[in-house]
């Protein structure tokens, strides 16, 4: 019997390894690395302009874009390459050129970028010299929160080398631009990441936001807000508005790391908590997550 136990012990421990532990080949020994935001640099386009032709025809825009990416690289940060994504999209025939703004947003969605950096190059020619101005703006893709805005100027020079001027305009503002983004990132690390929560009702649902629900018989909207009050990171949330059929939180902060386990935390995990909350109220929901937006539909 003793020998049998000794023989069975290793196999039991193997079973435990498979059942409980992380795959041994990917086991990180408890080390958790914070998931970094995906950043993509894109050119500015006016309404109706074709992104591809704009970028392919204008070398100044390409230079500005490359210099911006170079700035991120110098800080040891890898950006998502817009041109590569554009080519992949072109190869896959995903987009048509009919609606440019749609293409831009589709590329951002497809790339999974959390932050996009838009650069607008303005070439100015004059008798007192030529110059290039650059408008750099960084936004959170999902919420539209502005992260950094800078205007870079090359200064006026008697030269037709606009490539050099574009390069100079980026150099004059990129460090400041990156420092401001980093400040906002620090705010996110300390005060949580911003997500949007959109709660609506299925067309066949018997409930509305005014339905009295739960053991205390409170309005559903009140129950939701009370839960949000307790679960938003550092009690930081903003309610955009409530109607009978909709409730939108346009800024709910969630932590970057799970406060209990220290593992990475994301909108999906927050949606799971909301799912549990609604189930506790006796409600069935369906949930969809797109980037940092959670769509909940009460059935």
């Amino acid at each position, binding site marked *: 019997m003793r020998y049998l136990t000794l023989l069975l012990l290793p196999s039991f421990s193997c079973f435990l390894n498979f059942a409980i532990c992380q795959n041994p080949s990917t086991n990180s020994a408890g080390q958790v690395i914070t998931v970094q935001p995906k950043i993509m640099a894109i050119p500015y386009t006016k309404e109706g302009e074709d992104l591809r032709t704009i970028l392919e025809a204008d070398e100044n825009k390409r230079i500005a874009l490359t210099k911006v990416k170079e700035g991120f690289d*110098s800080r040891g940060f890898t950006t998502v390459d817009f041109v590569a994504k554009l080519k992949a999209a072109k190869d896959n025939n995903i987009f048509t050129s009919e609606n440019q703004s749609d293409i831009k947003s589709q590329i951002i969605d497809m790339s999974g970028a959390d932050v996009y950096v838009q650069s607008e190059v303005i070439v100015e020619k004059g008798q007192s010299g030529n110059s290039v101005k650059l408008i750099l703006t960084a936004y959170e893709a999902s919420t539209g929160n502005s992260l950094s805005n800078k205007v870079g100027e090359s200064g006026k020079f008697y030269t037709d080398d606009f490539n050099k001027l574009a390069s100079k305009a980026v150099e004059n503002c990129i460090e400041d631009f990156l420092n401001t983004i980093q400040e906002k*990132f620090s705010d996110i690390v300390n005060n949580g990441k911003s997500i949007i929560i959109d709660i609506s009702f299925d067309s066949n649902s018997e409930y509305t936001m005014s339905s009295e629900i739960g053991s205390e018989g409170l309005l559903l909207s009140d129950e939701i807000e009370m839960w949000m009050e307790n679960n938003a990171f550092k009690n930081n949330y903003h309610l955009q508005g409530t109607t009978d059929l909709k409730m939108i939180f346009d800024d709910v902060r969630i932590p970057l790391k799970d406060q209990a386990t220290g593992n990475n935390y994301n909108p999906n995990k927050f949606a799971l908590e909301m799912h549990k909350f609604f189930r506790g109220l006796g409600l069935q929901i369906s949930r969809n997550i797109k980037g940092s937006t959670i769509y909940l539909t009460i059935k």
Partner: protein
Amino acid sequence: MKVMKLNSGVKTIAIMIYITLMINCSYKPIPTAEVNFLTGKDGTITMRAIGVGTNIDDATNDAENNAINVLLFRGLPGSDQKVALIGTNEAEEKNKHPEYFNNLYKGKRYKTFVMSSIPTTDLIKHKGGKKSIAVDIKVNVAALRKDLEQNNIIRKFGF
């Protein structure tokens, strides 16, 4: 005999008062932030800083120290590094990483980030024996930032 004892007591008191006065009047460097931005390019910043000391070397070291201190804990208006590299609460930050800052300041490791240090004035004497000098100091900010990141004093770019 009593007069002798009284005299020695008065002498002791007089000496003590003299020592106290001397200590109070002796030179004490006051922390200053007399650092102004001159130029900046490709990860470097050139500043004009005022340093105080008993001789040129001391005063120049103090100016370099001030320049690094301003970059780390104050930020330099007009430059790309408008915000402090670490944070404005220097006492808290220094307490968090005493070994790093001891090495940086007392071990004079900050000098490895100083690319050039050129005095622009002679040593100027002030009242009370204080001497000061203005120095143009070029600092490799990119390397300084990387060093802070590698030693976990600040976060790398991103979350």
